[in-house]
């Protein structure tokens, strides 16, 4: 092959990879934007695709619930892809990887060894899988898509909206009319395409931002720093790609040049013989495109020289033991004895324990929630439940005929209920705080809660009662009360209560108690 042709081949390969990366990033972002109400009760797209083909999510969830989850079957596609082509997913598809590449470019990341950190991703993987087997789900803290969607939902999207709308609003409210006549049409187009429908507000913005941008800022430490050292999905794909049959030829960097090894973004050439470690290579093709002297290629061949696995048995054992002890700590945590009474889960969730096993903290439900009602927890569900969704009625209520969260949940942690099932699902129970509720505490009629109760047969009613009001007059007011059997805990009553601060009616956790079953202390001797 002549030099010219080889160069062109290299350029072509690199552009193919870049186009693939950008295309998948675009798909990812479009799916993110489509994770919203669109005028019909059903979302017609598989907006949660990236989670459903994520083998790490599939493995962790399957181990946790110990049964096959049909929703996650697409993960087999990525497994097969990796067994054949190696970590092509990391190099050509992963949207977080693409953002990391971009960040590396931006910060002019140097290749940097930190070879001791490399096994950390395997230890993380081990911890995630072992703990999930024992009923604690940590995958969401480290899974690249969970980090990405959570970061976009909780931080990037709201901030983008705030800044963009803030700019247009400023022009609209302060600038002369001719200018706002120019900007408003642009704003309308943006509102209908790029921007979310409404400004959202979330808990944990700072910590989520630190995790998300922290990963991108790792560019300061070296290229693909997260992928090489920490990504547990990368670790899982690395294990699979040891068997891959799409391999670089020649397998080692040339002794007299080693240009490829020196510039490899994954630092995938082992130092001794310069052999390319298949499990570390993300098949980015830089080493082919930049090859200085011989025509390097990726081609199908059976792996001949296996490189040594970059793991210390003793470390793995230690980490595994730690992972086994973690569930013991959470089981004696206070949450197990007395759960937070205001921790409300989305409609369609099973028991708290089952829910925590299935939930991968991906943030899809929080993205899709049209009332901004689902919020990430910090410690309300225990540290092991961090970033799981909770309904916070004072921020937003659960829209009666909406079942979108169940539609986008990739693991079934929030079951896909029909609208009719959803309308009957009990999230919690509304309870009046008669010391605060306006009619009860101030002897004035109000019943905004009754007005908003969406049930055909309202769960909040009111009876006419004669009272002496604050002026000392005898008046008849409407005194509201809850019919417990009807209430589904959607929280609209708490949401619209006109009191400042805590509402006069609050939704309490549904305890899932079966009467007369179980033992333990109940206070009777």
């Amino acid at each position: 092959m002549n030099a010219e042709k080889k160069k062109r081949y290299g350029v072509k390969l690199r552009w193919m990879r870049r186009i693939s990366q950008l295309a998948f990033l675009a798909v990812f972002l479009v799916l993110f934007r489509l994770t919203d109400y669109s005028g019909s009760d059903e979302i017609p797209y598989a907006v949660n695709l990236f989670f459903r083909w994520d083998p790490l999510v599939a493995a962790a969830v399957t181990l946790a619930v110990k049964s096959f989850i049909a929703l996650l079957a697409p993960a087999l596609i990525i497994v097969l892809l990796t067994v054949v082509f190696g970590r092509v997913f990391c190099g050509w598809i992963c949207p977080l990887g693409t953002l990391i590449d971009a960040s590396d470019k931006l910060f002019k990341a140097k290749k940097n060894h930190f070879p001791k950190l490399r096994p950390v991703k395997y230890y993380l993987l081990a911890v995630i899988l072992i703990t999930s087997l024992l009923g604690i789900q940590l995958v969401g803290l480290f899974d690249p898509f969970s980090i990405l969607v959570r970061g976009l939902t909780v931080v990037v999207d709201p901030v983008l909206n705030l800044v963009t709308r803030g700019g247009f609003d400023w022009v609209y409210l302060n600038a002369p009319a001719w200018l706002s006549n120019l900007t408003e049409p642009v704003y309308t187009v943006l509102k209908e395409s790029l921007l979310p429908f409404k400004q959202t507000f979330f808990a944990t913005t700072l910590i989520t931002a630190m995790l998300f941008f922290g990963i991108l800022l790792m560019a300061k430490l070296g290229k693909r720093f997260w992928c090489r050292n920490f990504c547990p999905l990368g670790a899982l794909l690395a294990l699979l790609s040891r068997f891959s049959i799409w391999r670089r030829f020649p397998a080692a960097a040339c002794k007299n040049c080693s240009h490829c090894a020196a510039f490899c973004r994954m630092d995938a050439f082992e130092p001794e013989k310069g052999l390319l470690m298949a499990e570390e290579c993300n098949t980015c093709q830089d080493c082919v495109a930049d090859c200085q002297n011989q025509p390097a290629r990726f081609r199908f061949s059976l792996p001949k020289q296996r490189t040594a696995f970059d793991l210390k048995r003793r470390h793995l054992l230690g980490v595994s033991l730690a992972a086994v002890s973690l569930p013991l700590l959470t089981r004696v945590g206070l949450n197990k004895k007395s759960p937070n009474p205001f921790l409300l889960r989305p409609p369609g969730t099973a028991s708290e324990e089952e829910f925590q096993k299935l939930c991968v903290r991906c943030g899809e439900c929080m993205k899709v929630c049209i009332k901004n009602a689902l919020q990430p927890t910090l410690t309300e569900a225990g540290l092991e439940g961090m970033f799981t969704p909770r309904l916070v009625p004072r921020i937003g209520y659960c829209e009666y005929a909406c079942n979108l969260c169940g539609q986008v949940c990739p693991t079934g942690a929030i079951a896909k209920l029909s609208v009719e099932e959803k309308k009957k699902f009990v999230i919690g129970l509304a309870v009046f705080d008669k010391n605060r509720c306006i009619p009860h505490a101030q002897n004035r009629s109000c019943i905004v809660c009754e007005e908003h109760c969406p049930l055909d047969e309202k769960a909040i009613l009111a009876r006419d009662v004669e009272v002496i009001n604050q002026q000392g007059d005898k008046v008849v007011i409407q005194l509201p009360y809850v019919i417990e059997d009807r209430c589904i805990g959607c929280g609209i009553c708490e949401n619209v209560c006109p009191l400042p601060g805590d509402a006069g009616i609050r939704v309490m956790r549904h305890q899932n108690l079966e009467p007369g079953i179980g033992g333990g202390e109940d206070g009777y001797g």
Partner: protein
Amino acid sequence: MQRRDFFKKMALAGAAIPVLSLPIQPKPTADASPLLVTGVGEDYPQLLKKVLAPLGGIGAFVKKGYKVVIKPNIGWDRNVEQGACTHPLVVRALAEMALAAGAAKVMVFDRTCNEERRCYQNSGIEPELKKVNDSRLVVEHIDERKFVPIEIKKGKKLSKWGFYKDVLEADCYINVPVAKHHRLSGLTLGLKNIMGIIGGNRSTIHFNLGANLADLNTVLPAHLTIIDATRILLRNGPQGGRVSDVTVLHRLIASTDIVAADAYATTLFDMKPDALESTRLAYEMGLGQMDLDKVKMVTV
């Protein structure tokens, strides 16, 4: 310019933002014996035309080049049969008539209670208006920037509240409520429909709802009130849910007098015309006539 100067000037500019004050159009003053038209019919566009005819037709309200606001009730995520929102065919017919009368712009909106997109969609109003296919017809969600603080000079309970700019600036504001039950106010009709064009936390004005509604209506008396009683929600209002709580009447009520319209619509629920506190207080404040004996009633 020095950076520091720039920031200083920015801060000054920010402090100097004037409070928006809008000229409020003179609205028709209350007539002691207003005209009220009511009629029954299953073809709603036809019925609407018939009901408006004695009032001078749509042309009496919408002139060429007018900016028109049509304010239906789109408050709830409920469908047509459930009777919680204004009938989409009535809204569409009205919009088409206004367009045909030469309106420069016809705006339809409501500040909803449930999620706005679901309300617009499932009430049937947005899909029905999309069929009109006229660029002068604008169906928008509420834009929070457009609430303008207005002094309520005649107000007894409220002294100031935010009102929607497009309504304040409209040449013609047509109020199209649906008649339905509401536990606190008794019924929700024309006067209460103003809730959809005001800003702020609306929950907080529910303590003296009747008085507050009367106060709010002093700012923006509608040029025309058309009460949709094609079907009325008898119980479980204002959002209902059960079709069994709805009675179909195929009736429309139109008047330039919002109090008269409310007083008459109240009788459809087997209640006395002055049964609602808001009607009584609005009458006392001179917003219209609630004594139906003094109203010129035309049945078509």
